[in-house]
């Protein structure tokens, strides 16, 4: 059946190739999700019980201030007009003005986003670099019920580390490195050393979780028939694990990794608040408490869009890694 598909595709034109069909479908999915994200972000303000303008202006505000805020938020216009102008704002990069700072929202986002993205990317890189080799190694060591002691130790340590949330890891690191010893900076973003603790805090839990998963996948792959074939060819362990085991791990590693990545984006919000990191995470908490809606909506769209983009990239990578996935999914 698969052979038939490939033959058919090559005789009927490239546009019917399963890969392309999948890519098109996946991109449509991405755009639909984006539209949904923007719509939900728009509705955030509308769904606030009571009068959003009053809520935003504050209980103590006078009616004039509330009215002024209503006009500012555009709440005096029909819903559909508000929705359309919300979209227009996104396309023209005019997302309104923040109440507190009186700065254009887009400027705030552009100023703070790089810090958040740097943190996230560094942490993701660290997670991958740690989890894949470590998980593979532990899988190789504990296969076939060998070294039960090592397995028990691994399970216990990784479970404990995986339980520690990023903000708590951050607090503990602050304590360890600032309170009891003055080794590393624990607030702000200035110089390479200031990245160390926030990145560790953000990547600790996901590293432990992904290592467990890579180990489990390694054990599964080692059970497969093609590994027995490889072993029958009498090759050294490096070639066996590097050439025969590793490529088969990558699919599930990336799949789960993608989900973890999404979680880590959210995690930046928490870690930034521990380390006073000048990214969007600290901004969003302040703006929620200040009821600075234009800013909140924009930041939510930003985070959501980044997560959706990551998912898209991961899915495309998976297709490139293993072409069969396209056939399964289309």
């Amino acid at each position: 059946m698969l052979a038939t598909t490939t033959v058919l595709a090559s005789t009927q034109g490239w546009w019917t190739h399963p890969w392309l069909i999948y890519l098109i479908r996946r991109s449509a999915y991405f755009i639909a999700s984006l539209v949904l994200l923007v719509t939900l972000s728009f509705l955030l303000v509308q769904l606030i019980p009571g009068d959003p303008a009053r809520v935003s202006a504050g209980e103590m505000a006078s009616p004039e201030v509330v009215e002024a805020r209503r006009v500012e938020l555009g709440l005096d216009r029909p819903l559909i007009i508000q929705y359309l102008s919300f979209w227009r704002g996104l396309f023209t990069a005019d997302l309104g003005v923040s109440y507190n700072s009186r700065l254009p929202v887009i400027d705030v986002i552009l100023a703070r986003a790089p810090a958040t993205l740097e943190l996230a990317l560094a942490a993701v890189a660290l997670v991958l670099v740690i989890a894949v080799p470590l998980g593979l190694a532990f899988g190789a060591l504990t296969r076939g019920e060998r070294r039960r002691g090592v397995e028990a130790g691994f399970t216990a340590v990784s479970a404990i580390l995986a339980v520690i949330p990023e903000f708590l890891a951050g607090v503990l690191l602050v304590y360890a490195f600032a309170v009891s010893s003055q080794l590393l900076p624990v607030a702000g973003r200035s110089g390479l050393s200031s990245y160390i603790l926030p990145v560790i805090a953000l990547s600790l839990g996901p590293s432990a979780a992904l290592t467990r998963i890579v180990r489990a996948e390694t054990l599964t792959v080692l059970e497969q028939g093609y590994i027995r074939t490889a072993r029958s060819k009498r090759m050294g362990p490096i070639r066996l694990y590097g050439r025969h085991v590793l490529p088969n791990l990558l699919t599930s590693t990336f799949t789960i990794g993608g989900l973890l990545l999404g979680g880590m984006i959210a995690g930046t919000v928490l870690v930034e608040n521990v380390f006073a990191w000048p990214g969007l995470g600290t901004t969003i908490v302040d703006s929620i408490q200040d009821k600075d809606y234009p800013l909140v909506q924009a930041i939510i769209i930003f985070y959501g869009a980044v997560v959706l983009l990551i998912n898209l990239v991961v899915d495309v990578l998976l297709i490139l890694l293993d072409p069969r996935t396209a056939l399964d999914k289309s």
Partner: protein
Amino acid sequence: MMKTRERFLTVLGSPLGILAAIACAALLFLALLAPAIWGEAAADIDTMQISKGPSPEHVFGTDGSGRDILLRTLVATRLSVVMALMATGIGVVGGVLIGLLPLIVGGRFGRWIVVGINIGVAFPGLLLAIAFSVILGQSGAAATTAIALAMVPNYGRFTHNLAASVWGRDFIAAAEVLGVPTWKTAFRHVLPNVRDPLLVNAAITAGGALVSFAGLSFLGLGIQVPEYDWGRMLNEGLTRIFVTPAAALVPGVAIILAGLTFVLLGEVLGKALTPTTRRDVKSRFRRHMPSGEASGASGPIDTDAVLSVRNLRVAAPGDKGWGSLVHGVSFDVARGEIVGIVGESGSGKSLTLTSVAGLLDSPLSVAADSAQFDGQPLTLKTGTHASSLNHHLGQGLAMIFQDPMSSLNPALSVGSQVAEPGVLHLGMSRSVARSAAIERLESVRISDAERRYGQYPHEYSGGMRQRAMIATGLMGKPALILADEPTTALDVTVQAEILSLLRRINREDGTAIVLVSHDIAVVTSLCSRVLVMYGGRIVENIGSEELKAGHAKHPYTKALLATVPTMQTDRDRPMASIPEGADFSDTSRTPG
């Protein structure tokens, strides 16, 4: 096979179980009773004792308002645990329903639900929670709602994946054919079969919910003053961490301990609910390996034979010690001979082959008095030479396995896998190996070999994959091919082609073959000599012609022959079979 209740008690008795029980009891106790016992004391503001360190009065010191840190932490347990459990309850129930719905509803609508779940999963829970706190304001109720709603798509997808895999099994189809309504099938047949992993995951999810709540409170978006939970305490403690670290560390440790409690609960549930095949017997192999009586060939090793084995034993650890799977098998394979090993499931035929090839892996154990391949001694210890660069075996011994679907690495091109022995053992360069591999592919009648070289296993048919496996083995000039049920998974016409290929290789190159199969017709059509295995022993060692002429000696062989239908079997009589439970092991065996 232990029953669930027995397993539960066993697990509870283990160190893990005891730890889990203590932790759960402590958490429960604190959640239920701590506010009643220490509530007032925890709220007690002692302005004389602000931000003091540990003292006899206050075990971990006091916070910025002069309140005892330890007591506050203990009292905060209730709110943290209760919110986590409530959110988990809602999230799990919602998730299960959403996960099952696509299967019940089916069709296009069902697919849209799955799409919806996938979109929901894409958004991290924290972002959803933040969004909700905008709408609903900042409060414990808003946080609970947010976390519960964020849990639904994740749990829903987990449920759906589990349910979908159960849905593909035949008993679901059987229920549909009987006429059971779909919704009834979902609840009666699917849910009980996914209940266990769902429960385990629910326990772990509850731990996650607890941690998420702490996160929200930490950000100030969850519980508001005057209520407090661990996250809130962490938030307050962080601002004073240089002065009173305990104010942050104690609630922090509490979060970790509570999270671990749920993880332990999940582990215990997992172990108790899954029938485990774990062995708890230490490997004291040499002393306990049953030394079976040799069956098959007798006498010392035949050094002219290409393969010679004496008293091969294989055992597996079980609940009650080592179980013997192969009880002392001995045989010789002469150069250029085709020998068949036939037996049913449980006869040990595949294990015999796998252990001779040195591919048996732990926890199974193998031993033999002596073994020799192609003039050199063969060590059969588990996994010794299988993972080392052993040139003698790498090019002298070829192997074909049963399932061509899974015998080739799906991530690598077929050609590179065929060429691999050339690179490993024959000192070929990549390009030389490539040409040699293409030649071998042609010799096994794979057309368009040059193009096929670069293709992946999923682009080959089952028969082609087996041919590719044979081609791989032929890279060197093997003295022996070990074939483990090579045609069982193939169509009968393809099987005929593979068998004739093997015959040709034997005829042209003088390669000996050992063919293992459950199909006595296949074995007798290809092999000149047949070994019949039953219950881990060789019970018959006979030439094919003699076997076909009806000269089999062992009762099992005779019974087995009778059950195999041929195109000449009498149609008017009922089919012959061997009654279940019949035991042929007492009858004296005829070795040699």
